[in-house]
Protein backbone atom coordinates (compact mmCIF):
# COMPACT_ATOMS: atom_id res chain seq x y z
CA UNK A 1 0.00 0.00 0.00
CA UNK A 2 1.42 3.31 -1.08
CA UNK A 3 1.59 6.28 1.24
CA UNK A 4 2.08 9.95 0.52
CA UNK A 5 5.74 10.61 -0.06
CA UNK A 6 6.08 14.37 0.15
CA UNK A 7 9.62 14.10 -1.15
CA UNK A 8 9.54 16.74 -3.90
CA UNK A 9 7.05 19.62 -4.09
CA UNK A 10 5.61 18.89 -0.66
CA UNK A 11 8.92 18.29 1.12
CA UNK A 12 8.33 21.19 3.53
CA UNK A 13 4.74 20.26 4.31
CA UNK A 14 5.49 18.69 7.71
CA UNK A 15 7.20 21.86 9.01
CA UNK A 16 5.78 24.68 11.06
CA UNK A 17 5.19 27.66 8.73
CA UNK A 18 6.63 25.71 5.78
CA UNK A 19 6.44 28.76 3.50
CA UNK A 20 9.25 30.70 5.21
CA UNK A 21 12.83 30.97 4.00
CA UNK A 22 14.07 29.41 7.24
CA UNK A 23 11.81 26.38 6.78
CA UNK A 24 12.92 25.95 3.19
CA UNK A 25 16.57 26.29 4.18
CA UNK A 26 16.10 23.56 6.78
CA UNK A 27 15.35 20.95 4.10
CA UNK A 28 18.32 21.98 1.97
CA UNK A 29 16.52 24.73 0.09
CA UNK A 30 18.54 27.01 -2.21
CA UNK A 31 21.57 24.68 -1.93
CA UNK A 32 21.26 23.82 -5.63
CA UNK A 33 20.96 27.45 -6.68
CA UNK A 34 23.94 28.45 -4.53
CA UNK A 35 25.96 25.61 -5.99
CA UNK A 36 25.16 26.88 -9.48
CA UNK A 37 26.16 30.40 -8.48
CA UNK A 38 29.43 29.05 -7.09
CA UNK A 39 30.39 26.55 -9.75
CA UNK A 40 28.77 28.02 -12.90
CA UNK A 41 28.09 24.59 -14.45
CA UNK A 42 27.37 24.18 -18.15
CA UNK A 43 23.58 24.64 -18.45
CA UNK A 44 23.53 21.65 -20.78
CA UNK A 45 24.59 19.43 -17.89
CA UNK A 46 21.57 20.55 -15.89
CA UNK A 47 19.26 20.12 -18.87
CA UNK A 48 20.66 16.61 -19.41
CA UNK A 49 19.94 15.77 -15.78
CA UNK A 50 16.35 16.91 -16.31
CA UNK A 51 16.08 14.84 -19.47
CA UNK A 52 17.38 11.82 -17.53
CA UNK A 53 14.77 12.43 -14.82
CA UNK A 54 11.95 12.15 -17.35
CA UNK A 55 10.14 15.03 -15.69
CA UNK A 56 7.10 15.68 -17.85
CA UNK A 57 5.20 18.96 -17.80
CA UNK A 58 2.80 18.90 -14.87
CA UNK A 59 0.32 21.42 -16.24
CA UNK A 60 -1.45 18.84 -18.35
CA UNK A 61 0.34 18.33 -21.65
CA UNK A 62 3.11 16.12 -20.21
CA UNK A 63 5.81 17.49 -22.51
CA UNK A 64 9.34 16.66 -21.24
CA UNK A 65 10.64 19.69 -19.34
CA UNK A 66 14.33 19.14 -20.17
CA UNK A 67 13.56 18.95 -23.87
CA UNK A 68 11.52 22.16 -23.67
CA UNK A 69 14.42 23.98 -22.04
CA UNK A 70 16.79 22.72 -24.74
CA UNK A 71 14.72 24.52 -27.40
CA UNK A 72 15.74 27.91 -26.06
CA UNK A 73 18.36 29.82 -28.07
CA UNK A 74 20.32 30.38 -24.88
CA UNK A 75 23.27 32.21 -26.39
CA UNK A 76 21.28 34.44 -28.75
CA UNK A 77 21.64 38.12 -27.86
CA UNK A 78 18.82 40.05 -26.23
CA UNK A 79 16.31 39.50 -23.46
CA UNK A 80 14.84 36.07 -22.81
CA UNK A 81 12.18 35.10 -20.27
CA UNK A 82 11.15 32.29 -17.97
CA UNK A 83 7.43 32.32 -17.21
CA UNK A 84 5.70 30.19 -14.60
CA UNK A 85 2.10 29.20 -15.22
CA UNK A 86 0.28 29.39 -11.87
CA UNK A 87 -3.06 30.09 -13.55
CA UNK A 88 -4.50 26.92 -12.09
CA UNK A 89 -8.13 26.61 -13.17
CA UNK A 90 -8.84 23.24 -14.75
CA UNK A 91 -11.81 22.02 -12.72
CA UNK A 92 -10.65 19.45 -10.19
CA UNK A 93 -7.10 20.79 -10.03
CA UNK A 94 -5.93 22.40 -6.78
CA UNK A 95 -2.27 21.39 -6.43
CA UNK A 96 -0.38 24.50 -7.54
CA UNK A 97 -2.31 26.54 -5.01
CA UNK A 98 -0.79 24.39 -2.26
CA UNK A 99 2.74 24.66 -3.70
CA UNK A 100 2.35 28.46 -3.65
CA UNK A 101 0.91 28.40 -0.15
CA UNK A 102 3.20 25.86 1.48
CA UNK A 103 6.44 25.76 -0.51
CA UNK A 104 6.79 29.01 -2.47
CA UNK A 105 10.58 29.22 -2.07
CA UNK A 106 11.08 25.98 -3.97
CA UNK A 107 9.31 27.57 -6.92
CA UNK A 108 11.52 30.67 -6.63
CA UNK A 109 14.59 28.42 -6.66
CA UNK A 110 13.24 26.39 -9.58
CA UNK A 111 12.58 29.54 -11.60
CA UNK A 112 16.06 30.92 -10.89
CA UNK A 113 17.63 27.64 -12.02
CA UNK A 114 15.45 27.64 -15.14
CA UNK A 115 16.52 31.22 -15.88
CA UNK A 116 20.17 30.21 -15.63
CA UNK A 117 19.67 27.22 -17.93
CA UNK A 118 17.78 29.04 -20.68
CA UNK A 119 19.60 32.36 -20.47
CA UNK A 120 16.70 34.34 -18.98
CA UNK A 121 17.47 37.11 -16.52
CA UNK A 122 13.82 37.96 -15.91
CA UNK A 123 11.01 35.70 -14.73
CA UNK A 124 7.29 36.24 -14.32
CA UNK A 125 4.97 34.05 -12.30
CA UNK A 126 1.42 34.35 -13.65
CA UNK A 127 -0.88 33.63 -10.69
CA UNK A 128 -4.64 33.55 -11.11
CA UNK A 129 -6.31 36.61 -9.61
CA UNK A 130 -8.51 34.72 -7.16
CA UNK A 131 -5.44 33.26 -5.42
CA UNK A 132 -4.95 36.18 -3.01
CA UNK A 133 -3.43 34.14 -0.20
CA UNK A 134 -1.15 32.00 -2.42
CA UNK A 135 -0.04 35.15 -4.26
CA UNK A 136 0.82 36.89 -0.99
CA UNK A 137 2.84 33.86 0.12
CA UNK A 138 4.75 33.79 -3.15
CA UNK A 139 5.38 37.54 -3.12
CA UNK A 140 6.71 37.28 0.42
CA UNK A 141 9.02 34.47 -0.66
CA UNK A 142 10.30 36.59 -3.56
CA UNK A 143 10.97 39.48 -1.19
CA UNK A 144 12.80 37.20 1.25
CA UNK A 145 14.91 35.82 -1.61
CA UNK A 146 15.83 39.35 -2.73
CA UNK A 147 16.71 40.35 0.83
CA UNK A 148 18.85 37.25 1.28
CA UNK A 149 20.76 38.12 -1.89
CA UNK A 150 19.57 34.97 -3.66
CA UNK A 151 18.03 36.77 -6.61
CA UNK A 152 18.44 40.23 -8.11
CA UNK A 153 21.21 41.91 -10.09
CA UNK A 154 24.78 40.62 -9.91
CA UNK A 155 23.78 37.98 -7.37
CA UNK A 156 26.50 37.57 -4.70
CA UNK A 157 29.00 39.26 -7.01
CA UNK A 158 28.73 36.49 -9.62
CA UNK A 159 27.57 38.74 -12.44
CA UNK A 160 24.44 36.57 -12.71
CA UNK A 161 21.14 38.49 -12.83
CA UNK A 162 17.71 37.16 -12.06
CA UNK A 163 14.70 39.36 -11.41
CA UNK A 164 11.38 37.76 -10.54
CA UNK A 165 7.92 39.34 -10.64
CA UNK A 166 4.31 38.30 -10.12
CA UNK A 167 1.66 38.99 -12.73
CA UNK A 168 -1.85 38.58 -11.34
CA UNK A 169 -4.61 37.21 -13.55
CA UNK A 170 -8.19 38.44 -13.31
CA UNK A 171 -10.44 35.46 -13.93
CA UNK A 172 -9.95 33.68 -17.27
CA UNK A 173 -9.34 29.92 -17.54
CA UNK A 174 -7.94 30.37 -21.04
CA UNK A 175 -4.88 32.18 -19.67
CA UNK A 176 -3.62 28.79 -18.53
CA UNK A 177 -2.95 28.19 -22.24
CA UNK A 178 0.65 29.30 -22.58
CA UNK A 179 0.34 31.75 -25.45
CA UNK A 180 -2.88 33.25 -24.05
CA UNK A 181 -0.93 33.71 -20.83
CA UNK A 182 1.77 35.64 -22.72
CA UNK A 183 -0.88 37.85 -24.36
CA UNK A 184 -2.30 38.50 -20.91
CA UNK A 185 1.09 39.59 -19.53
CA UNK A 186 1.33 41.91 -22.51
CA UNK A 187 -1.83 43.63 -21.26
CA UNK A 188 -4.31 42.16 -23.72
CA UNK A 189 -7.26 39.80 -23.82
CA UNK A 190 -6.02 36.27 -23.21
CA UNK A 191 -6.50 34.87 -26.69
CA UNK A 192 -4.12 32.11 -27.77
CA UNK A 193 -1.60 32.68 -30.56
CA UNK A 194 -0.98 30.50 -33.54
CA UNK A 195 1.99 28.17 -33.20
CA UNK A 196 4.49 28.27 -34.86
CA UNK A 197 6.25 30.40 -34.03
CA UNK A 198 6.68 28.68 -30.68
CA UNK A 199 7.39 30.73 -27.55
CA UNK A 200 11.01 29.50 -27.50
CA UNK A 201 11.48 31.57 -30.66
CA UNK A 202 8.84 34.30 -30.34
CA UNK A 203 7.41 34.54 -26.85
CA UNK A 204 6.78 37.29 -24.33
CA UNK A 205 7.30 40.72 -25.93
CA UNK A 206 8.41 38.83 -29.04
CA UNK A 207 11.42 37.41 -27.21
CA UNK A 208 12.43 33.76 -26.63
CA UNK A 209 10.43 32.46 -23.67
CA UNK A 210 9.94 29.21 -21.79
CA UNK A 211 6.67 28.62 -19.95
CA UNK A 212 6.47 25.86 -17.36
CA UNK A 213 3.84 24.80 -14.86
CA UNK A 214 4.30 25.57 -11.16
CA UNK A 215 4.76 21.93 -10.16
CA UNK A 216 7.28 21.31 -12.97
CA UNK A 217 9.47 24.23 -11.91
CA UNK A 218 9.16 23.43 -8.21
CA UNK A 219 10.36 19.88 -8.91
CA UNK A 220 13.67 21.05 -10.39
CA UNK A 221 15.68 21.79 -7.21
CA UNK A 222 15.00 18.31 -5.82
CA UNK A 223 15.88 16.64 -9.13
CA UNK A 224 19.25 18.42 -9.06
CA UNK A 225 19.82 17.53 -5.42
CA UNK A 226 19.01 13.85 -5.68
CA UNK A 227 19.83 13.32 -9.34
CA UNK A 228 17.82 12.64 -12.46
CA UNK A 229 18.24 8.90 -12.00
CA UNK A 230 16.72 9.04 -8.52
CA UNK A 231 13.72 10.99 -9.79
CA UNK A 232 13.19 8.59 -12.67
CA UNK A 233 13.32 5.62 -10.32
CA UNK A 234 10.55 7.08 -8.17
CA UNK A 235 8.19 6.55 -11.08
CA UNK A 236 8.28 4.43 -14.20
CA UNK A 237 10.33 4.63 -17.39
CA UNK A 238 8.99 7.54 -19.45
CA UNK A 239 7.05 8.68 -16.35
CA UNK A 240 9.65 10.02 -13.95
CA UNK A 241 9.06 11.02 -10.39
CA UNK A 242 6.33 11.42 -7.88
CA UNK A 243 3.50 13.71 -8.89
CA UNK A 244 0.79 15.63 -7.11
CA UNK A 245 -2.68 14.21 -7.54
CA UNK A 246 -5.71 16.26 -6.51
CA UNK A 247 -8.35 13.69 -5.60
CA UNK A 248 -11.79 15.31 -5.32
CA UNK A 249 -15.47 14.64 -5.82
CA UNK A 250 -17.08 11.64 -4.14
CA UNK A 251 -14.30 10.54 -1.81
CA UNK A 252 -14.17 10.49 1.98
CA UNK A 253 -10.96 12.49 2.31
CA UNK A 254 -10.32 14.67 -0.74
CA UNK A 255 -6.79 16.03 -0.77
CA UNK A 256 -3.57 16.51 -2.72
CA UNK A 257 -1.31 13.46 -2.65
CA UNK A 258 2.32 13.36 -3.73
CA UNK A 259 2.78 9.77 -4.83
CA UNK A 260 4.91 7.97 -7.44
CA UNK A 261 3.72 7.88 -11.02
CA UNK A 262 2.66 4.32 -11.67
CA UNK A 263 0.79 3.93 -8.39
CA UNK A 264 -2.34 1.81 -8.87
CA UNK A 265 -5.48 3.93 -8.95
CA UNK A 266 -7.10 1.72 -6.33
CA UNK A 267 -4.32 2.61 -3.88
CA UNK A 268 -4.78 6.33 -4.55
CA UNK A 269 -8.51 5.95 -4.00
CA UNK A 270 -7.82 4.17 -0.71
CA UNK A 271 -5.49 7.01 0.34
CA UNK A 272 -8.37 9.40 -0.23
CA UNK A 273 -10.50 7.32 2.13
CA UNK A 274 -12.39 5.45 -0.57
CA UNK A 275 -15.64 6.37 -2.24
CA UNK A 276 -17.82 8.64 -0.11
CA UNK A 277 -20.35 6.88 2.06
CA UNK A 278 -19.01 3.48 1.04
CA UNK A 279 -20.74 3.71 -2.32
CA UNK A 280 -19.60 1.84 -5.41
CA UNK A 281 -17.26 3.62 -7.81
CA UNK A 282 -19.09 4.61 -10.97
CA UNK A 283 -16.54 6.52 -13.00
CA UNK A 284 -13.41 8.63 -12.82
CA UNK A 285 -12.30 11.70 -14.72
CA UNK A 286 -8.60 11.03 -14.24
CA UNK A 287 -6.75 14.17 -15.26
CA UNK A 288 -8.89 17.27 -14.92
CA UNK A 289 -12.30 18.09 -16.35
CA UNK A 290 -11.19 18.08 -19.97
CA UNK A 291 -9.93 14.49 -19.99
CA UNK A 292 -12.21 11.66 -21.13
CA UNK A 293 -14.20 9.89 -18.42
CA UNK A 294 -13.22 6.29 -17.61
CA UNK A 295 -15.71 3.74 -16.16
CA UNK A 296 -14.93 2.74 -12.59
CA UNK A 297 -14.29 -0.93 -13.28
CA UNK A 298 -11.69 -0.03 -15.91
CA UNK A 299 -10.09 2.56 -13.64
CA UNK A 300 -9.66 0.02 -10.81
CA UNK A 301 -7.16 -1.82 -13.01
CA UNK A 302 -5.21 1.23 -14.15
CA UNK A 303 -2.00 2.71 -12.76
CA UNK A 304 -1.59 6.46 -12.42
CA UNK A 305 0.94 7.29 -15.12
CA UNK A 306 0.83 8.99 -18.50
CA UNK A 307 1.07 5.79 -20.52
CA UNK A 308 -1.38 3.59 -18.59
CA UNK A 309 -4.09 6.25 -18.53
CA UNK A 310 -3.59 6.89 -22.24
CA UNK A 311 -4.06 3.17 -22.82
CA UNK A 312 -7.32 3.33 -20.86
CA UNK A 313 -8.53 5.96 -23.32
CA UNK A 314 -7.94 9.09 -21.28
CA UNK A 315 -5.13 11.37 -20.13
CA UNK A 316 -3.20 12.01 -16.93
CA UNK A 317 -3.51 15.74 -17.62
CA UNK A 318 -2.93 17.83 -14.54
CA UNK A 319 -3.41 14.89 -12.17
CA UNK A 320 -6.84 16.04 -11.06
CA UNK A 321 -8.72 12.86 -10.26
CA UNK A 322 -12.47 13.49 -10.06
CA UNK A 323 -14.27 10.55 -8.51
CA UNK A 324 -17.92 9.86 -9.32
CA UNK A 325 -19.90 7.45 -7.13
CA UNK A 326 -22.72 5.17 -8.17
CA UNK A 327 -25.91 7.19 -8.37
CA UNK A 328 -24.27 10.16 -10.05
CA UNK A 329 -26.31 11.63 -12.88
CA UNK A 330 -23.86 11.67 -15.78
CA UNK A 331 -26.05 14.00 -17.83
CA UNK A 332 -25.90 16.55 -15.06
CA UNK A 333 -22.14 16.18 -14.74
CA UNK A 334 -21.60 16.64 -18.46
CA UNK A 335 -23.97 19.62 -18.56
CA UNK A 336 -21.85 21.20 -15.82
CA UNK A 337 -18.62 20.59 -17.74
CA UNK A 338 -20.14 21.92 -20.96
CA UNK A 339 -21.28 25.06 -19.17
CA UNK A 340 -17.72 25.62 -17.97
CA UNK A 341 -16.17 25.48 -21.43
CA UNK A 342 -18.89 27.65 -22.92
CA UNK A 343 -18.27 30.24 -20.21
CA UNK A 344 -14.50 30.10 -20.65
CA UNK A 345 -14.13 29.92 -24.44
CA UNK A 346 -12.21 33.05 -25.42
CA UNK A 347 -14.33 33.55 -28.53
CA UNK A 348 -11.51 33.69 -31.04
CA UNK A 349 -12.22 30.54 -33.11
CA UNK A 350 -15.72 30.05 -34.47
CA UNK A 351 -15.97 26.26 -33.89
CA UNK A 352 -15.21 26.69 -30.19
CA UNK A 353 -17.08 29.95 -29.59
CA UNK A 354 -20.27 28.67 -31.25
CA UNK A 355 -19.81 24.97 -30.55
CA UNK A 356 -19.26 25.18 -26.79
CA UNK A 357 -22.41 27.27 -26.38
CA UNK A 358 -24.35 24.90 -28.58
CA UNK A 359 -23.22 21.84 -26.58
CA UNK A 360 -24.12 23.58 -23.35
CA UNK A 361 -27.57 24.61 -24.56
CA UNK A 362 -28.44 21.16 -25.90
CA UNK A 363 -27.32 19.49 -22.66
CA UNK A 364 -29.23 22.06 -20.65
CA UNK A 365 -32.49 21.32 -22.46
CA UNK A 366 -31.87 17.60 -22.17
CA UNK A 367 -31.34 17.95 -18.42
CA UNK A 368 -34.58 19.90 -18.15
CA UNK A 369 -36.68 17.26 -19.85
CA UNK A 370 -36.79 18.92 -23.23
CA UNK A 371 -34.38 16.68 -25.09
CA UNK A 372 -35.13 15.79 -28.69
CA UNK A 373 -34.61 12.46 -30.42
CA UNK A 374 -31.88 13.89 -32.62
CA UNK A 375 -29.94 15.46 -29.73
CA UNK A 376 -27.41 12.67 -29.22
CA UNK A 377 -26.41 12.75 -32.85
CA UNK A 378 -26.30 16.53 -32.65
CA UNK A 379 -23.97 16.42 -29.62
CA UNK A 380 -21.70 13.94 -31.40
CA UNK A 381 -21.66 16.08 -34.48
CA UNK A 382 -21.02 19.42 -32.77
CA UNK A 383 -18.26 17.96 -30.58
CA UNK A 384 -16.71 16.34 -33.65
CA UNK A 385 -16.68 19.68 -35.43
CA UNK A 386 -14.87 21.47 -32.60
CA UNK A 387 -12.07 18.99 -31.90
CA UNK A 388 -8.93 19.66 -33.92
CA UNK A 389 -10.37 22.76 -35.57
CA UNK A 390 -9.25 25.48 -33.19
CA UNK A 391 -6.05 27.39 -32.46
CA UNK A 392 -5.68 26.03 -28.93
CA UNK A 393 -6.66 22.93 -27.00
CA UNK A 394 -9.71 24.42 -25.26
CA UNK A 395 -11.82 23.24 -28.19
CA UNK A 396 -10.60 19.67 -27.74
CA UNK A 397 -11.01 20.03 -23.99
CA UNK A 398 -14.67 20.85 -24.50
CA UNK A 399 -15.26 18.11 -27.05
CA UNK A 400 -13.53 15.17 -25.33
CA UNK A 401 -15.80 14.95 -22.29
CA UNK A 402 -18.89 15.01 -24.52
CA UNK A 403 -17.59 12.23 -26.74
CA UNK A 404 -16.48 10.07 -23.82
CA UNK A 405 -19.66 10.52 -21.77
CA UNK A 406 -21.78 9.62 -24.79
CA UNK A 407 -19.60 6.60 -25.48
CA UNK A 408 -19.85 5.13 -22.00
CA UNK A 409 -23.18 6.45 -20.69
CA UNK A 410 -25.29 6.92 -23.82
CA UNK A 411 -28.22 5.09 -22.21
CA UNK A 412 -28.49 7.73 -19.51
CA UNK A 413 -28.79 10.47 -22.12
CA UNK A 414 -31.28 8.37 -24.08
CA UNK A 415 -33.38 7.94 -20.93
CA UNK A 416 -33.54 11.68 -20.42
CA UNK A 417 -34.77 12.12 -23.98
CA UNK A 418 -37.39 9.40 -23.70
CA UNK A 419 -38.62 10.05 -20.16
CA UNK A 420 -37.61 13.63 -19.46
CA UNK A 421 -35.81 12.65 -16.28
CA UNK A 422 -32.78 10.90 -14.88
CA UNK A 423 -32.17 7.19 -15.03
CA UNK A 424 -30.33 7.28 -11.71
CA UNK A 425 -31.30 8.48 -8.30
CA UNK A 426 -29.95 11.93 -7.48
CA UNK A 427 -26.46 11.71 -6.00
Amino acid at each position, binding site marked *: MVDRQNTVCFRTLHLDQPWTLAAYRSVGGYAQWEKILRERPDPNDIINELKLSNLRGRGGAGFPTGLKWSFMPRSAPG*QKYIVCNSDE*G*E*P*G*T*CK*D*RDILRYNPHQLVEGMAIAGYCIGATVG*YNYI*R*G*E*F*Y*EPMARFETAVREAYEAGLIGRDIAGTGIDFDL*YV*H*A*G*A*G*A*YICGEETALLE*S*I*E*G*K*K*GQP*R*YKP*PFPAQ*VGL*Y*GRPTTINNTESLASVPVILEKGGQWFLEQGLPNNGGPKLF*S*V*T*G*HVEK*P*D*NFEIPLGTPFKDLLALAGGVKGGRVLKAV*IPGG*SSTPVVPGEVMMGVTMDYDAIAKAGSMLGSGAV*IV*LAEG*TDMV*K*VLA*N*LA*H*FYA*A*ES*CGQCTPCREGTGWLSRVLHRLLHGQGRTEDLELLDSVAGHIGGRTICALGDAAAMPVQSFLKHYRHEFQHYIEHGRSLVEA*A
Partner: protein
Amino acid sequence: MSFRSAPLTVPAPAEVKESLLDAEIRAAIDSQVAKYPAEWKQSAVMAALTLVQDWNGGWLSPDLMDAVATYLDMPPVAVYEVATFYNMYDLEPTAKHKVCVCNSISCLLNGSEELIAHVEKKYGLKPGQTSADGRFTFKEVECLGACRHAPAVLLGQTYHEGLTPEALDKLIEGLG
Protein backbone atom coordinates in the same frame (compact mmCIF):
# COMPACT_ATOMS: atom_id res chain seq x y z
CA MET B 1 -2.78 35.70 -39.04
CA SER B 2 0.38 37.65 -38.58
CA PHE B 3 1.84 37.97 -35.16
CA ARG B 4 2.12 41.40 -33.67
CA SER B 5 4.00 42.06 -30.50
CA ALA B 6 4.13 45.81 -30.15
CA PRO B 7 2.43 47.95 -27.53
CA LEU B 8 -0.38 50.25 -28.69
CA THR B 9 1.11 53.41 -27.30
CA VAL B 10 -0.91 56.65 -27.34
CA PRO B 11 1.17 59.05 -25.25
CA ALA B 12 -0.66 61.48 -22.96
CA PRO B 13 0.96 64.58 -21.46
CA ALA B 14 2.31 64.29 -17.93
CA GLU B 15 0.24 67.19 -16.59
CA VAL B 16 -2.95 65.39 -17.66
CA LYS B 17 -1.86 62.23 -15.87
CA GLU B 18 -1.14 64.07 -12.64
CA SER B 19 -4.80 64.97 -12.29
CA LEU B 20 -6.10 61.42 -12.76
CA LEU B 21 -7.40 59.08 -10.06
CA ASP B 22 -5.54 59.87 -6.86
CA ALA B 23 -1.92 60.03 -5.80
CA GLU B 24 -1.92 56.76 -3.88
CA ILE B 25 -3.47 54.81 -6.76
CA ARG B 26 -1.06 56.40 -9.24
CA ALA B 27 1.87 55.36 -7.06
CA ALA B 28 0.50 51.81 -6.81
CA ILE B 29 0.09 51.65 -10.60
CA ASP B 30 3.63 53.01 -11.04
CA SER B 31 5.04 50.18 -8.95
CA GLN B 32 3.24 47.71 -11.22
CA VAL B 33 4.53 49.43 -14.36
CA ALA B 34 8.07 49.03 -13.00
CA LYS B 35 7.80 45.24 -13.33
CA TYR B 36 7.74 45.38 -17.12
CA PRO B 37 9.96 46.71 -19.94
CA ALA B 38 9.72 50.51 -20.23
CA GLU B 39 7.85 50.43 -23.56
CA TRP B 40 5.32 47.91 -22.21
CA LYS B 41 3.42 50.05 -19.71
CA GLN B 42 0.24 48.35 -20.94
CA SER B 43 1.39 45.15 -19.20
CA ALA B 44 0.25 46.86 -15.99
CA VAL B 45 -3.32 47.33 -17.23
CA MET B 46 -4.76 44.31 -15.42
CA ALA B 47 -3.19 45.30 -12.11
CA ALA B 48 -4.24 48.92 -12.65
CA LEU B 49 -7.87 47.94 -13.30
CA THR B 50 -7.87 45.78 -10.17
CA LEU B 51 -6.47 48.62 -8.06
CA VAL B 52 -8.94 51.14 -9.45
CA GLN B 53 -11.88 48.75 -9.09
CA ASP B 54 -11.10 48.12 -5.42
CA TRP B 55 -10.61 51.85 -4.81
CA ASN B 56 -13.99 52.54 -6.46
CA GLY B 57 -15.85 50.11 -4.19
CA GLY B 58 -15.94 47.09 -6.48
CA TRP B 59 -16.66 48.16 -10.05
CA LEU B 60 -15.24 50.04 -13.03
CA SER B 61 -17.04 52.94 -14.72
CA PRO B 62 -16.23 54.03 -18.29
CA ASP B 63 -14.61 57.19 -16.88
CA LEU B 64 -12.30 55.15 -14.70
CA MET B 65 -11.34 52.86 -17.58
CA ASP B 66 -10.60 55.97 -19.65
CA ALA B 67 -8.42 57.31 -16.84
CA VAL B 68 -6.46 54.05 -16.75
CA ALA B 69 -6.05 54.24 -20.53
CA THR B 70 -4.69 57.78 -20.39
CA TYR B 71 -2.44 56.99 -17.46
CA LEU B 72 -0.90 53.98 -19.22
CA ASP B 73 -0.67 55.64 -22.67
CA MET B 74 -3.19 53.17 -24.09
CA PRO B 75 -6.11 53.66 -26.48
CA PRO B 76 -9.34 53.42 -24.42
CA VAL B 77 -10.63 50.53 -26.54
CA ALA B 78 -7.62 48.41 -25.53
CA VAL B 79 -8.56 48.91 -21.88
CA TYR B 80 -12.24 48.10 -22.55
CA GLU B 81 -11.16 44.89 -24.27
CA VAL B 82 -9.29 43.80 -21.17
CA ALA B 83 -11.99 44.94 -18.73
CA THR B 84 -14.72 43.05 -20.62
CA PHE B 85 -12.65 39.89 -21.12
CA TYR B 86 -11.69 39.00 -17.55
CA ASN B 87 -14.40 37.87 -15.14
CA MET B 88 -13.08 39.59 -12.04
CA TYR B 89 -13.82 43.05 -13.41
CA ASP B 90 -17.34 44.32 -12.83
CA LEU B 91 -18.63 46.99 -15.18
CA GLU B 92 -21.91 47.66 -13.34
CA PRO B 93 -22.21 48.94 -9.79
CA THR B 94 -21.80 46.23 -7.16
CA ALA B 95 -21.97 46.07 -3.41
CA LYS B 96 -18.73 46.35 -1.47
CA HIS B 97 -18.80 42.61 -0.76
CA LYS B 98 -18.93 39.98 -3.48
CA VAL B 99 -20.04 36.48 -2.58
CA CYS B 100 -18.63 34.29 -5.36
CA VAL B 101 -19.89 30.71 -5.24
CA CYS B 102 -17.95 28.17 -7.31
CA ASN B 103 -20.24 26.14 -9.58
CA SER B 104 -17.73 23.81 -11.23
CA ILE B 105 -17.60 20.04 -11.08
CA SER B 106 -15.92 19.17 -7.76
CA CYS B 107 -18.05 21.76 -5.98
CA LEU B 108 -21.20 20.54 -7.77
CA LEU B 109 -20.48 17.01 -6.52
CA ASN B 110 -20.23 18.37 -2.98
CA GLY B 111 -23.21 20.65 -2.64
CA SER B 112 -22.63 23.93 -4.51
CA GLU B 113 -26.14 23.66 -5.96
CA GLU B 114 -27.58 23.82 -2.46
CA LEU B 115 -25.51 26.92 -1.70
CA ILE B 116 -26.66 28.64 -4.88
CA ALA B 117 -30.30 27.64 -4.38
CA HIS B 118 -30.12 28.83 -0.80
CA VAL B 119 -28.86 32.30 -1.72
CA GLU B 120 -31.39 32.54 -4.52
CA LYS B 121 -34.25 31.60 -2.21
CA LYS B 122 -33.35 33.30 1.04
CA TYR B 123 -32.16 36.58 -0.46
CA GLY B 124 -34.21 36.47 -3.65
CA LEU B 125 -31.13 36.93 -5.80
CA LYS B 126 -30.08 35.70 -9.20
CA PRO B 127 -26.37 35.53 -9.97
CA GLY B 128 -25.06 39.02 -10.68
CA GLN B 129 -27.65 40.73 -8.46
CA THR B 130 -27.07 42.75 -5.30
CA SER B 131 -28.99 42.09 -2.08
CA ALA B 132 -31.90 44.42 -1.27
CA ASP B 133 -29.99 45.91 1.66
CA GLY B 134 -27.05 46.61 -0.65
CA ARG B 135 -24.60 44.65 1.46
CA PHE B 136 -23.41 42.06 -1.04
CA THR B 137 -23.44 41.07 -4.68
CA PHE B 138 -23.99 37.39 -5.45
CA LYS B 139 -21.90 35.82 -8.20
CA GLU B 140 -21.63 32.33 -9.58
CA VAL B 141 -18.06 31.71 -10.70
CA GLU B 142 -16.17 28.99 -12.54
CA CYS B 143 -13.63 26.74 -10.79
CA LEU B 144 -11.77 28.54 -7.99
CA GLY B 145 -9.07 25.87 -7.76
CA ALA B 146 -10.09 24.89 -4.24
CA CYS B 147 -11.61 21.56 -5.26
CA ARG B 148 -10.35 19.52 -2.33
CA HIS B 149 -12.46 21.41 0.19
CA ALA B 150 -15.55 21.78 -1.92
CA PRO B 151 -17.83 23.61 -2.08
CA ALA B 152 -15.80 26.81 -2.13
CA VAL B 153 -16.79 30.44 -1.91
CA LEU B 154 -14.60 33.48 -2.53
CA LEU B 155 -15.65 36.36 -0.29
CA GLY B 156 -13.55 39.48 -0.74
CA GLN B 157 -10.02 38.15 -0.83
CA THR B 158 -10.65 35.07 1.28
CA TYR B 159 -11.57 31.51 0.36
CA HIS B 160 -14.15 29.78 2.52
CA GLU B 161 -14.20 26.06 1.93
CA GLY B 162 -16.39 23.08 2.71
CA LEU B 163 -19.39 25.33 3.30
CA THR B 164 -22.93 24.34 4.20
CA PRO B 165 -25.85 26.73 3.52
CA GLU B 166 -25.88 27.53 7.27
CA ALA B 167 -22.17 28.34 7.30
CA LEU B 168 -22.61 30.55 4.24
CA ASP B 169 -25.47 32.34 6.00
CA LYS B 170 -23.23 33.07 8.96
CA LEU B 171 -20.62 34.56 6.66
CA ILE B 172 -23.21 36.73 4.94
CA GLU B 173 -24.69 37.83 8.27
CA GLY B 174 -21.23 38.83 9.43
CA LEU B 175 -20.67 41.22 6.54
CA GLY B 176 -20.36 44.88 7.45
